[in-house]
């Protein structure tokens, strides 16, 4: 019995940090409508700075002072980020905001390693809370008790801040209707900045307070952000009480999940999240999301099928690509195969994202499931390659059918967070369920049959499949189903009013995209000869998003070009520098802020400008918040 009580108290202590970070995210989202992906990064910097300060400053005062000082320093960094980056993208679509803050996260990951090194850092114990308390033979660290008390105290302080101060009233008003608040003469710029600073302060405080419990390391940002996304999905974005209740719930589920499913404890959290989403799609304490903000002028050029000239040009490009083995060496062919596979991956996400308006942040899950499908079939069932290639992607299809069903119940940022959480769950299963997946060691020795074994043959196979998939998905864009999918993206209300079951259409699109990604993953498994959990990791999901974004979200052909350019750049970059995340993160932010229409979008805009001299829509992302003036 005592054991369970201790387990319960440990869960409560873990909830404190989770609550701090989640409430910060919620407050920022409530006012600015930005889901700050970089929140995990701020949490991590908080921990690192606090580590450095506590090493320098001695004594109890030094320790606690360091914690607060670290959080303040990170809040200051937050202010700079808000003024330099976020002010430029408040009017951008949600996807761009998520991506820009993700780019920031990538940069921070490399910077942290650069400054503090790659090793785990173990910090000081908290003065006054070094011991443990004996509870019927079980030890409870007294620092845990401190954290258990801290959570409700912070909740109370936040409550007072929002109910009793002028600033709190403004924040609550802005959460309901920020345009109205601006119209009433409130300086919106500084309101946004201060809200962001408070949110970041909470995240950094959460990180700093973790030092006595956990080692500080450079991957803690992604781990916390996924948990925080789960917390806000369960609790409801924008609700602080919801963040508290859900943080406690998730932490307890984690604490007890280990006892029930020791290998895959995350399953329990997933099941609870699924139930909450079915019963209350906007979280326990959340409110239904207002209709997604329409970004004016985002897609003004209606899509059209290729003209016969353009078809000929595409065919010619394909033929030229097919001649590569005649003059290129084996390395170039392997790179070519990889690019072709990523074209498949990118067009599958593009279909979901641009045609369906559903920006998945966890698309790699289905790519990776396809790869694992191959591994299971080839290694365990011993099936020949051709059978594996046909059946392997079905695992991606299955995953997309299960997760997609829940994901399409939501839209916008909720959809993005949910798909990310699902992908992370699949990753955890692949990582933790060692007996089946081999865990971190992966599954090795997947070699293609002899007919596809030579680099040139494999290249032709990958190229052929990529061409087939691209043509098929393009045909679908201009099929009756494609029209219906675009209709659900543009107006749910109108779709339902003309007999379209929008959720089912979107679910179908999700399954199509997931299966296609699975095809890419299946080929990837054979290309690499192995499968690892990284094949379904977050960074691969983001790669896909960047490829689509780079090509141009609003275009039909962008994904292909985006994939080719991005993958080629990426392979080159990794060979040139150790700081690829830093460069990549900066690159992502640059595209979002300066180059939002992507390569194909830019080309189309230039072509249009040449056709008629009328200026196309003003660059919509370069505008700062005018309503603040």
């Amino acid at each position, binding site marked *: 019995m005592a054991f369970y009580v201790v387990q319960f108290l440990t869960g409560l202590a873990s909830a404190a940090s989770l609550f701090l970070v989640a409430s910060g995210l919620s407050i920022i989202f409530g006012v600015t409508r930005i889901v700050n992906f970089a929140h995990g990064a701020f949490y991590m910097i908080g921990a690192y700075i606090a580590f450095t300060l506590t090493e320098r400053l001695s004594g109890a005062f030094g320790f606690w002072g360091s914690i607060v000082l670290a959080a303040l320093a990170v809040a200051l960094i937050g202010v700079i980020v808000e003024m330099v980056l976020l002010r430029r993208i408040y009017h951008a679509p949600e996807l761009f905001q998520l991506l820009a803050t993700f780019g920031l996260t990538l940069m921070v990951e490399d910077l942290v390693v650069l400054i503090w090194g790659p090793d785990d850092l173990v910090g000081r114990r908290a003065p006054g809370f070094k011991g443990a308390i004996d509870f019927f033979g079980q030890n409870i660290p007294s620092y845990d008790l401190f954290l258990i008390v801290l959570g409700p105290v912070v909740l109370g302080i936040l409550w007072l801040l929002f109910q009793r101060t002028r600033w709190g009233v403004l924040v609550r008003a802005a959460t309901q209707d920020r345009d109205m608040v601006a119209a009433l003469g409130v300086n919106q710029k500084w309101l946004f900045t201060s809200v962001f600073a408070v949110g970041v302060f909470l995240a950094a405080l959460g990180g700093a307070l973790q030092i006595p419990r956990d080692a500080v390391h450079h991957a803690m940002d992604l781990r916390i952000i996924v948990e925080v996304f789960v917390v806000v999905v369960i609790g409801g974005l924008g609700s602080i009480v919801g963040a508290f209740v859900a943080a406690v719930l998730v932490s307890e589920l984690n604490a007890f999940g280990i006892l029930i499913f020791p290998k895959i404890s995350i399953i329990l959290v997933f099941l609870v999240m699924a139930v909450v989403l079915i019963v209350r799609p906007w979280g326990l304490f959340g409110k239904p999301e207002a209709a997604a903000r*329409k970004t004016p002028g985002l897609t003004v050029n209606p899509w*059209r099928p290729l003209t016969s000239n353009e078809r000929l040009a595409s065919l010619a490009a394909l033929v030229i690509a097919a001649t590569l083995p005649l003059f290129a060496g084996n390395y170039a062919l392997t790179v070519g195969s990889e690019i072709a596979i990523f074209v498949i991956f990118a067009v599958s996400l593009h279909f979901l994202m641009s045609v369906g308006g559903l920006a998945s942040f966890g698309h790699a899950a289905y790519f990776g499931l396809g790869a694992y499908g191959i591994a299971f079939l080839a290694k365990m069932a011993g099936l020949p390659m051709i059978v594996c290639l046909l059946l392997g992607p079905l695992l991606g299809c299955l995953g997309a059918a299960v997760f997609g069903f829940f994901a399409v119940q939501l839209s916008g940022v909720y959809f993005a967070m949910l798909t990310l959480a699902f992908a992370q769950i699949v990753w955890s299963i692949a990582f933790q369920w060692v007996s089946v997946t081999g865990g971190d060691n992966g599954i090795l020795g997947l070699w293609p049959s002899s007919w596809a074994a030579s680099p040139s043959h494999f290249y032709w196979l990958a190229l052929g499949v990529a061409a087939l998939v691209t043509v098929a998905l393009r045909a679908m864009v201009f*099929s009756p*189903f*494609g029209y219906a999918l675009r209709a659900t993206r*543009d107006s749910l209300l*109108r779709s339902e009013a003309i*007999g379209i079951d929008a959720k089912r259409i979107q679910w179908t699109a999700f399954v199509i995209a997931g299966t296609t990604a699975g095809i890419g993953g299946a080929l990837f498994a054979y290309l690499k000869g192995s499968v690892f959990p990284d094949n379904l990791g977050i960074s691969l999901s983001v790669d896909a998003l960047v490829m689509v974004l780079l090509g141009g979200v609003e275009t039909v052909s962008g994904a292909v070009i985006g994939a080719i350019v991005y993958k080629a750049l990426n392979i080159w970059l990794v060979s040139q520098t150790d700081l690829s995340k830093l460069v990549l993160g900066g690159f992502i932010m640059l595209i979002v802020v300066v180059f939002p229409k992507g390569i194909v979008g830019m080309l189309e805009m230039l072509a249009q400008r040449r056709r008629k001299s009328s200026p196309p829509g003003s660059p919509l992302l370069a505008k700062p918040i005018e309503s603040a003036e």
Partner: protein
Amino acid sequence: MSAIPPLLAVEGLTKSYGGIHAVRGVSFSLRAGEILALIGPNGAGKSTCFDMLNGQNKPDSGHVRLLGEEITGRKPREVWRLGVGRTFQITATFATMTVRENVQVALISHEKQLYNLWGSAPKFDRGEAGRLLELVGMGGYADRPCGELAYGDLKRLELAVALANQPKLLLMDEPTAGMAPRERVDLMRLTASIAREKSIGVLFTEHDMDVVFEHADRIIVLNRGTLIAEGSPAEVRGNPQVQAVYLGEGLVYDARHREGTSA
């Protein structure tokens, strides 16, 4: 009882939000080919009433029957399949698609081709889509992106979309709001002629009394959630209760309203 049930029969429709009775025991019916106006001051419950007819909103009690078939509480998409088209007070169209594509989506849905993955949508019922657009006077706009249209044109496009499934009943929530006076008359004249020709029943709400009295065959008046009058335009115009609760204020409001929107 006659052998043929009325096109639309509404019986004791009731809806409350918390303690507020938005709609209380509303009953009326509508024949095929008849144009029925639902009027009432702001907050009378017109929109709530409307939303309950096509399943956008669920009534607490009461019945909605279409040709005798119970449709109360059905989903909007199911009600549409039974032949009820609808336009919205604030237009809802597919902004990134062209005008023709907007109509084509409705036709695709009507012909149950929504899950057709391989057909060519640009060629799908192109002629029929063009004909519907001609019918509402939008033939020249077929290839324009829908997002570029003026508000009045969007209203006409919504009418074309609503006609795509050859409806038996059209529900039009403030069909002429936001249009110039000339356009209002044109649109309602068009609607009336289509309705009479194809024997479609039309139920519409409207603030512009000129439009209402010129085009409605019959008028029902809603005030604070209950029906207070029903009859021909002449009867309703002469009803003292209507004058007291509605027309007195309504005309003043309406004059301001029109000034605001046509500016």
